[in-house]
């Protein structure tokens, strides 16, 4: 299913939702509260470019990233920047990172990046940093303070002592359900840096944190997990409007913990089932989340996609552009005080297409 970018649907959802538009702004009467405060950026994530041999890469994942880039480039007006949410490569090799970087180079808006575990564990991000810069940093844009964390680190013991080769370390971390994996964390060094970075920011400045892991504890078996989530959340607590946008999970999730709104982004490569569908484990899915519909495995782009994020008066609204699947808009609902699906929050989506 597709988003309907008609004038009528803009007007209906105006003011609270990302205007995913290919129309010039002058043709659309959007009534934003204070229009000069709002801006959009695109978010592409989890492309998992996977090398087979020589010049061959897994076609399915390639096509996902190619399509997301092409569609982002159709957006009018252009997004202020494009964020890449991590896991560009599948096994962190130079070939994969180069192949993916080549596709991202076609974007016609400035690119910023977040690192994922699939990019990190082969060479601890050495080649990544050559291509894309620092692994954690912050920047300000139009009155919003943005922070990028490398939230897929883990215990030093696992990273440095456990595995005989870098390749094996990467392979072990690459399996989502691998019992030999190790929980993600931000770690003390970055938390100290974050505390100092946020100390300079006024408490009424909106803060948006980009992270690969969820900065929540959702399901440890699949590393939908950040071990020091509470400590990071505590650092965000003093702010009026804090938002976390995370990748890694390849599915729609959203949540509110105190003052912090959480939103996941979709993968361009493939969708994952919800952890609640694993019959043998106790899992926790953020209870606000209306899950997305499951995909038809024949259509390789089904339930993959990218998102347009509108920062609307300090809160993020995401328009998920999903292929073949029902596209979704999760916007911060100011009345309810948390993110909510603009169409389906109070109704079951389509029960016969739900994950089970």
């Amino acid at each position, binding site marked *: *299913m*597709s988003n309907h970018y008609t004038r009528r649907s803009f007007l209906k959802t105006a003011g609270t939702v990302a205007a995913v538009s290919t*129309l010039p702004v002058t043709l659309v009467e959007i009534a934003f509260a204070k229009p000069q405060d709002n801006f959009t950026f695109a978010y592409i994530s989890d492309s998992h470019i996977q090398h087979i041999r020589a010049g061959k890469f897994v076609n399915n994942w390639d096509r996902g990233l190619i*399509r997301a880039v092409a*569609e982002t480039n*159709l957006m009018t007006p252009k997004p202020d920047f494009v964020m890449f949410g991590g896991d560009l490569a599948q096994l962190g090799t130079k070939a994969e990172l180069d192949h993916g970087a080549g596709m991202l180079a076609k974007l016609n808006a400035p690119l910023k990046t977040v690192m994922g575990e699939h990019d990190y564990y082969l060479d601890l991000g050495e080649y990544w940093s050559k291509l894309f810069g620092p692994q954690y940093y912050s920047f300000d844009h139009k009155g919003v303070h943005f922070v990028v964390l490398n939230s897929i680190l883990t215990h030093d013991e696992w990273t440095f002592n456990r595995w005989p080769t870098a390749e094996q370390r990467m392979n072990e971390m690459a399996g989502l359900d691998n019992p030999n994996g190790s929980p993600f964390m931000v770690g003390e060094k970055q938390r100290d840096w974050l505390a100092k970075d946020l100390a300079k920011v006024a408490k009424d400045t909106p803060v948006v944190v980009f992270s690969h892991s969820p900065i929540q504890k959702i399901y440890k078996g699949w590393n939908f997990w950040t071990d020091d989530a509470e400590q990071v959340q505590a650092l965000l607590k003093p702010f009026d409007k804090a938002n976390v946008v995370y990748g890694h999970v390849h599915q729609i999730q959203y949540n509110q913990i105190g003052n912090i709104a959480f939103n996941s982004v979709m993968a361009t490569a493939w969708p994952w089932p919800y952890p609640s569908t694993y019959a043998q484990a106790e899992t926790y899915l953020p209870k606000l989340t209306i899950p997305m519909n499951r995909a*038809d495995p024949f259509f390789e*782009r089904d339930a993959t996609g990218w998102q347009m994020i509108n920062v609307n008066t300090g809160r993020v609204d995401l328009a998920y552009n999903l292929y073949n699947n029902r596209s979704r808009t999760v916007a911060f609902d100011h009345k309810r005080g948390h993110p909510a699906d603009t169409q389906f929050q109070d109704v079951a989506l389509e029960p016969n297409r739900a994950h089970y």
Partner: protein
Amino acid sequence: MKHRHTSLWVVLAGASLPAAIALAGPLGLPPVPVPANNPMTPEKIALGSQLFNDKRFSATGEVACATCHDAGKAFTDSPLKTSEGINKLTGTRNAPTVVNAAYFASQFWDGRSADLEDQSQHPFVNPVEMGLKDHEPILKIVRSDPTYVAGFKQSFGVEPAAITMDHVKKAIASFERTLVAGDSPFDRWYFGGDKTAMSEAAVRGFKVFLEDGRCVSCHTIEQDHALFTDNRFHNIGAGINRIQDKVPEIAPKFLEAKAKGVDVDKAVLSDPNSSELGRFAVTDGLDELGSFKTPTLRNVAVTAPYMHDGSVKTLRDVVVHYNNGGVTNKGERVNDFLSGGIRELNLDEQQISDLVAFMEALTSPQHATPAQAASAGGQQ
């Protein structure tokens, strides 16, 4: 060889009929869906046939529905690439067959009409089809011509002055609902249990269809019938490849024009670039850029050329296009908006020709050419 022929015409020719007819599908097809507000009657069907064939409903008096949907050509204008309307004006789209169109969930290559009724009104007023300014000339004729007056009276109980386009559309749609055809060699082999009905090549081709060819997910078959269409829209790289570099320019421009009130039906038939936007032009949906409706494969062997723009000449060329992963010539650039179901297939020559043989086994007896009718029954 005895054919199990459950043709509609046999039913109609039967003795005493109730006022409305329920339509059982032929072998391989489900019952024809009939909307509650347009029940089928013999009178309405005959009226619809008359309207379908009437050339007076065009600016030059030379073009009827039957001009591009010719009963002798499986209700297409094969071998024309794109159809020719008044004064031989051409549009951008290949005329799809009306046979089995009753089973589609939407009409036109881009699904812009929800049903047969709605579809029937548009060609009359399209500048490159019948070229009428509006439907008034049609209404004038049906309200005054005695055979029409009688036909509408019998079908709808309506007096001449009260005849509207709604009645005209309903009659045409009723006629079109009788144009269903199954009972092909494939149907007899797969649903009818006749193990000699398809040639060996076609049987091998059916395996390719289900497995290495990856055809069945869009050209669907089911346990007891086969529509050969999922009624969805896909970008398979036909047509859009030609304009793919221009898409960033064309797509926003089209939406701009649409917001200003341009009629999609006229725009897509007259502008070869807009035409390639496909379903996107109707829904504005990014994930339907360059997408067109999956056509049925029934009678495909007699409805060449292929694709929405008639750009692929033969069935073999079609298979090669899919084998190449959505490009006509191997190595060409695949368009960025390609459907996720399309990829290189690595079929060998034998598989390609077997797949073609299978598609040739989907022709219903009443639409087969003499050569095909002779070989139907699987002597290869």
